[in-house]
């Protein structure tokens, strides 16, 4: 950068009186001796003098009263459109899901207990407890031996009776060998 460029860069700061003492002395000595920079600075200064001396613009004399009246109106004027705060949709969705989850987690223990209780109660009403068939009142059966000579008169036949598949008492056909008589017992599960 030559001395003239350097000098012209300082014009603004010199005009604003924001140069150091050394810069001021250097610039003033340069302007005194430079035929190019001196008229340049004079033109710069005249431009800013002209700008600064432009006449002030007068405003209306009744501006304070007008401004006050307008300010009163503005302060009391209702919004012309309803201002609805716009929230992102994801916030609403997340909040609803969280609320639902909390409600469910709070109700789940109660729901679970009662459901189990209801289920048990229903099962009790539908499925009879296994009963031991009374045999005492029966007349004693005559002893019958099978081909191997074993007495089956006191045998008990166990029938697996799934509750879901067979409601009520199981009436399974006897699988005892022919000629062998035994009591049926039902195990429900």
């Amino acid at each position, binding site marked *: 950068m030559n001395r003239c460029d350097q000098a012209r860069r300082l014009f*603004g700061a010199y005009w*604003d009186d924001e140069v150091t003492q050394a810069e001021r002395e250097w610039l003033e000595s340069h302007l005194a001796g430079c035929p190019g920079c001196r008229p340049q600075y004079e*033109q*710069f200064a*005249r*431009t*800013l003098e*002209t*700008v*600064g001396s*432009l*006449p*002030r*613009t*007068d*405003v*209306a004399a009744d*501006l*304070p*009263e*007008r*401004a*006050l009246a*307008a*300010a009163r109106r*503005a*302060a009391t004027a209702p919004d012309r459109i309803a201002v609805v705060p716009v929230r992102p949709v994801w916030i609403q969705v997340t909040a609803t899901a969280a609320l639902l989850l909390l409600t469910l987690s709070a109700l789940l223990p109660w729901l679970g207990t009662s459901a189990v209780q209801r289920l048990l109660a229903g099962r009790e009403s539908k499925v009879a407890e296994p009963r031991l068939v009374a045999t005492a009142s029966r007349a004693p059966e005559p002893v019958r031996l099978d081909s191997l000579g074993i007495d089956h008169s006191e045998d008990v036949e166990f029938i697996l009776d799934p509750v879901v598949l067979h409601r009520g008492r199981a009436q399974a056909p006897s699988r005892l060998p022919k000629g062998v008589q035994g009591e049926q017992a039902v195990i429900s599960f």
Partner: protein
Amino acid sequence: MGRVAEDDERAFTEIVRRFQGRVGNLISRVLNDRESVDDLAQEVFVRVFVHRRNYRRGSKFSTWVFTIAANLAKNEIRRRVRRRNWFSLDALTEVLSDSLPQLADPTESRETGMEREQLQGAVGRAIATVPEKYRLALVLRDIEGLAYEEIAEVLGLPGGTVRSRINRARGMLQRKLQPLLRKQDAP
């Protein structure tokens, strides 16, 4: 301003009286339009009143008012540019080409009031042709005489940016007014 914040209307009108000249001048010089000054100055003070509780005590009131005025002036410039009836390039060229030769007429006495008025008109129009971001900084500095720090606060810019904008605006203005000033200097 504390009294204004407490809805003291007399304090408000006093503030308007005290600042109306500077606010009006800023708007007038930024827009180069005398007709709109009263309406826009009024709007500035209405905003001062409406937002009176947002004013931070301890900060400089003039800075706050100038911030509102500068924002309104900027909005007005942009609104006019959108309407394309104000600062179009053609209009700017026309403004300068119309004003400068008239003012540079050497047969006219330089000392007459008419010439002075024409000179001021030409300077006002030349300022209006400086791009908005430079123009606001220039008007705040060279017409309203605000300190650089205050301008930085009004415009919400770093101090370095403000200095650079003012320097550029001054350079632009000097170049625009150069023909006029040269001819005025001629014998």
